[in-house]
């Protein structure tokens, strides 16, 4: 939007919403919404505390382990599905199924199988992230322009060269797109896992604050979490644009 010919930055309306929050909080309409300023004050006092740092490091650990498994398993499987028709036909129905399945329903199974701890949360995170990574990698491999493949053969590239000099780069924009969406899903997965298993990480912290009616603590942690999640997705989108500048022109 422009005001008097000056273009307002894209996310600047959040300031307006923040003000609205502050006003609603000041008016004391509801106990659940403390003024934003109070939340920020709490935020700075909470961020340095041991429980918060513990929750953050536990979450970061579960999150990065989950994402790593999703990438390490997802990308090769996706490439195989793109290259081999039989593998593709065997796996595709399941990948498609789990992509849209309500994976929250699987968390209780993970809990009984792997215990109420980190292992279950990591697997939940992986389950949320992996399917879209597989599917995008497969799509990336499948869309490689036939004339690029033929070009590689014409100029005598051996299979290995063709793979890492051409196919990998040709499919990279889709793969990165898949990883980005996968990571956003993983953020949700790691939180859902912690909420259901609620004795580790932020899940425990939320439980604690909610049970003791510490509203500004609750919101402070929530804001940190949202800000982190949003930054992660923006950083990945930025990287994706930097790396796959050629995506539209293949």
């Amino acid at each position, binding site marked *: 939007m422009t005001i008097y010919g000056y273009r307002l930055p894209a996310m*600047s*309306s959040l300031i307006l919403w923040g003000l609205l929050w502050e006003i609603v909080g000041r008016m004391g309409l509801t106990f659940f919404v403390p003024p934003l300023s109070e939340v920020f004050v709490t935020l700075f006092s909470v961020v340095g505390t041991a429980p918060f740092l513990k929750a953050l490091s536990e979450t970061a650990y579960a999150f990065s382990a989950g994402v790593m498994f999703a990438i390490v398993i997802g990308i090769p499987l996706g490439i195989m599905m793109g290259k081999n028709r039989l593998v593709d036909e*065997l796996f595709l129905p399941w990948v498609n199924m789990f992509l849209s399945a*309500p994976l929250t329903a699987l968390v209780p199974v993970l809990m*009984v199988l792997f215990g109420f701890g980190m292992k279950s949360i990591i697997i939940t995170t992986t389950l949320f992230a992996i399917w879209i990574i597989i599917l995008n990698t497969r799509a990336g491999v499948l869309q490689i322009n036939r004339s690029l493949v033929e070009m590689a053969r014409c100029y005598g590239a051996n299979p290995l060269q063709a793979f890492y000099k051409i196919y990998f780069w040709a499919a990279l924009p889709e793969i990165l797109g898949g990883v980005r969406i996968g990571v956003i899903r993983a953020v949700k997965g790691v939180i859902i896992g912690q*909420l*259901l298993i609620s004795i580790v990480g932020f899940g425990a912290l939320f439980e604690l604050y909610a049970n003791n009616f510490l509203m500004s603590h609750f919101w402070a942690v*929530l804001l940190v*979490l949202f800000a982190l999640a949003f930054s992660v997705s923006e950083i990945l989108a930025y990287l994706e644009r930097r790396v796959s500048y050629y995506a539209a022109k293949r």
Partner: protein
Amino acid sequence: MKSRSFWLKILSATVLFGAWQVAGMIPVSYAFPTFFESMAALVRLAADGTLFQAYVETLRPLVVGVGISAVFGIGLGLWIGLSSRFDWLFSPIFIVMQAAPLAALIPLLVMAYGIGLTSKVFVVCIMAMPVIVLNTAGAVRNTPSSIKEMGRSFLASDTEIILKIIIPAASPVIFSGLRLGISAGFIGAILAELKITPTGVGDIITYSRSIADYPAMYAAIFSIILLAVLFLNLLERLEVYLFEGNVRGYASD
């Protein structure tokens, strides 16, 4: 080649369920029943009617929540897509909501609205709404400018351009946004039942876990995933059928 892909699907299913059966027979864990035990439990649950009662319970917040999200989400999305002012005002909220783990709000919702239907409907809404809004707004914004210009050059009024050009052009993407919203709504509905109060399918899962009736637990989970996947698949087919050719065919191809 139709039959080849059909047989491969059967083969694929046999392999997976076979692996499940074998893993259950070893067993890999005391809490891992075999495939046939689970299916037997599913038949039992279905036969005595528990399953159907549970689904009535589970689907209620889902249907209400998705309905609310669809009406408000599409309305808001159209508005955001059409007006740059509302785009500036509302888009950031939904962009943040889309990226953020909104499930974290659940403890707060429970405090504010109790453990009843309202909270569960809210959970479904916060999960389903962002994707519906963003898809609708994006689709409206991306209506090819040449067909809008066509409308203008043949003297369409602004209302006609919205009703006869923008909305039909955007409807495939709006529909797929709705489908993704429903998919997210399923996640929300089950999350609500597992986290807030065990009702419906969530109750079967939680209860059978507590009495270590693992086949029943697996059966319930199997059934809800199956239901969600079948329903979303149906929607996807409907989408292909309804909008055949709408996505293609703007310019030369």
